[in-house]
């Protein structure tokens, strides 16, 4: 039997409301599915950015002084001496700020002094000569700080000059584009010039957001705030033990200091993306529930309609329609409804995408998502309609026409 448009449309014409309702459901589900998929994909992309540091075996302890007798330099030197002798410690360093968190300073960096010319907002991470080794960040050009270059300014001898700096590859690119940044002069937060002596691989410094990879490392032990950060990298698998031992010893070593905060990089990274991860989980969950309900609805209504149309199917079969013609008819009916729903859904998806772009600054919806979304929905809804269609085809003509 040739499948003309007549039998296909007649059933829909008899109950247009039912078809419209299914199309509406499919449209809304498609629009949400597509936009949710776009948001979740971007979240996953952002979460899988490399941190550039060893997140498994590194932790930071923030030490805070409690009285005038507290001396950052002597206490931190004692802490470092203890840590470096602890078995299981690969490297330890004193820094000011915690990579992968918002705990740190930022500064403006430019190629000309003061606010003349363009500047880049960058994280400023003061480190000693062990800093790079502890972060496990490799140099791609230039050299590390020498011990003699590490300055220890104090309230009595302030020294705002930073002579040499090391910058990340991202910051070097932001400042000098494709020129070589090594040996160039830059101005870090002040009018005094600094020379770039090294360029490191990218890593996430103590400043998040758009410029997570822009960091200036300065050779300095910061003493004027009565606090400092101990950065510790352990040998593989030893972190938990070293973390516990360090907390116990360092927490009580100097009565004038306490541990203000102690975080592992793994924890900091989890915290950093927790909002994004939760959004991705909730969005995926709600969208999948929606898709499942939509398909269950098609399946339920399909099953119900088969029962209602038993007689009609029986007559068709008696008049010579084969089983596969009946299945084809039901699937074609469903496909038509899905097509109408998909057109409506695509328009709605674009509208929602536009709204998200305007209100949340989400990037414009990629048309590929629409294509894949329509394919997924068409496939699942045809699957949902298939079982009722097969059941309809199994109706023997004799049973169906018995009551005539």
């Amino acid at each position, binding site marked *: 039997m040739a499948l003309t448009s007549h039998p296909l449309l007649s059933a829909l014409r008899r109950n247009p409301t039912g078809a419209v309702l299914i199309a509406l459901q499919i449209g809304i*589900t498609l629009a949400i599915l597509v936009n949710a998929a776009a948001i979740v994909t971007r979240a996953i992309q952002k979460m899988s950015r490399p941190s550039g540091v060893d997140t498994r075996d590194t932790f930071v302890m923030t030490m805070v002084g409690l009285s005038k007798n507290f001396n950052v330099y002597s206490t931190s030197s004692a802490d470092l001496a203890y840590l470096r002798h602890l078995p299981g410690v690969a490297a330890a360093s004193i820094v000011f700020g915690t990579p992968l968190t918002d705990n740190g300073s930022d500064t403006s960096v430019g190629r000309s002094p003061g606010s003349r010319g363009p500047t880049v907002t960058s994280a400023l991470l003061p480190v000693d000569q062990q800093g790079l080794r502890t972060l496990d960040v490799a140099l791609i050009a230039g050299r590390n700080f020498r011990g003699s270059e590490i300055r220890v300014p104090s309230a009595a001898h302030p020294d705002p000059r930073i002579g040499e700096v090391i910058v990340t590859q991202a910051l070097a690119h932001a400042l000098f584009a494709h020129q070589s940044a090594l040996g160039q002069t830059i101005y870090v937060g002040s009018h005094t010039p600094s020379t770039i002596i090294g360029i490191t691989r990218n890593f996430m410094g103590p400043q998040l957001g758009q410029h997570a990879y822009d960091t200036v490392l300065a050779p300095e032990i910061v003493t004027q705030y009565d606090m400092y950060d101990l950065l510790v990298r352990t040998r593989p698998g030893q972190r938990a033990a070293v973390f516990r031992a360090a907390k116990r010893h360092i927490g009580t070593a100097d009565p004038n200091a306490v541990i203000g905060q102690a975080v592992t990089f793994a924890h900091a990274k989890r915290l950093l993306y927790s909002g994004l991860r939760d959004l991705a989980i909730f969005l995926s969950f709600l*969208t999948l529930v929606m898709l499942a309900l939509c398909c*269950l609805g098609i399946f339920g209504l399909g099953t119900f309609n088969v029962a209602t149309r038993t007689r009609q199917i029986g007559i068709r079969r008696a008049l010579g329609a084969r089983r596969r013609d009946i299945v084809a008819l039901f699937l074609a009916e469903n496909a038509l409804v899905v097509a109408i729903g998909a057109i409506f859904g695509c328009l709605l998806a674009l509208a929602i995408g536009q709204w998200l772009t305007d209100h949340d600054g989400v990037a414009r919806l990629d048309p590929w998502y629409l294509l894949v979304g329509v394919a997924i929905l068409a496939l699942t809804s045809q699957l949902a309609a298939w079982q009722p269609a097969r059941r309809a085809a199994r109706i023997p003509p004799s049973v169906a026409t018995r009551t005539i």
Partner: protein
Amino acid sequence: MIGYYLRLALRSFRRAPGLTALMVSAIAIGIAACIVTLTVYHGMANNPIWWKNGELYAVTVNPSTPNRTREAGLPAYGPGQLAYDDATYLFGSSIPKRKALLTFLFGSISGAPDQTRPLPTMTRATTAGFFRMFAVPFRYGGPWSKAADRGPEPVMVLSGRENHKLFGGADSVGRTLLWSGHRFRVVGVLAPWHPLPRFYDLSAGNGGAFARPAGAFIPFQWGPVLGDWPAGDLSCDTHGSSTTPTTYQELLGSSCTWIGLWVELPTPAAQRHFLAFMQAYAANQRAAGRFQAVNTHLWTVSQWLTLHHVVSHRSGLLVNLAFALLAVCLINTLGILLAKFLRGAPVAGVRRALGASRRQIFAQHLVEAGAVSLAGAVLGLALSAAGLAGVRLMYRGSSAAYGKFAHFDAIGLAWAVALAFVSTIVAGLYPAWRIGRRAPATYLKSQ
């Protein structure tokens, strides 16, 4: 009559148990999704001091030009906190009924009986007005006096939590403690107080909108007197070219921002007066060359919450998504009910022929739709309770906001009832109307 309709509905459910289960669970899932997301959203959008919304104002002063402000990555109103000179000058005004300066200091408390180790404590350095202005409840004692602000006198207010750690919860008013080595006298102990969001301090650098209030409170001037650096948000990029201060004296003279200022202005006249006072100050500073712009604002608590995006776009997104899910569920149910009712049309035709009025047929089918929605709502409440428990479990021990608000409340219950009602109207009204309108003869013909 309703009882009879319900019996008919029950019979109809039994005829198609699968479809009925599908409708009930669809409505339940839709309602549960809405309640869970709405409960969290309402918690975040909460204004904990709504009754003083028109009286309390956060003060902002932006000394930079719009261009510089943009370059520094700040919103148009500038930094959310003030520099020392500006904060203390504006605080000196006698226009506000109450006023408070706010910053954080890090201290360690010792000297309590039986205490073996110093207790590291985030300490709120503020002024006497803080407690009355923000309606802070006291368990013992009370706030310090305004005179204690000026001294400053060594007085301290403890939070209930810290008082429990130090004194086992006993009345500690009059006791002396060492705060970072200095003697302070306890004058008050707070009752449990944890406003969410922490509207008076939303700065991310101070822990954000959902952080716990400080463990101890001391007069603001102790920071400058002891030369103790602020332990909270300290931002120095207001002028771009300014260098980071290295001594405490430099910090006081710098344009770095680290102090919050709140004022209580109960009347519109007082608001205008204070705004004019601020503008005059900014204009003076610009004339003196310290400011590049006159850009001062007063913000109500709800404006302040909005400016800081306390209600994240994300939670708003999820609420919208939940409502879209509910819409799909309702359309689903509407389609199934319509098909079911139309299939039962011959029965309705017989009832019409036997004397039932159109209205009675309509009522009978609406009762059936209502029963489906009601069952859906009850199941939905159970699902929401489970969902909220799941969210709490997911955020156990975390500082993220979602977990703190995932508790069933009266608002959630009211929403469930309202949504069940809406579901009946949306999903049941049209099918019931369609079936009630049918002429009985068409259906009786083929019997």
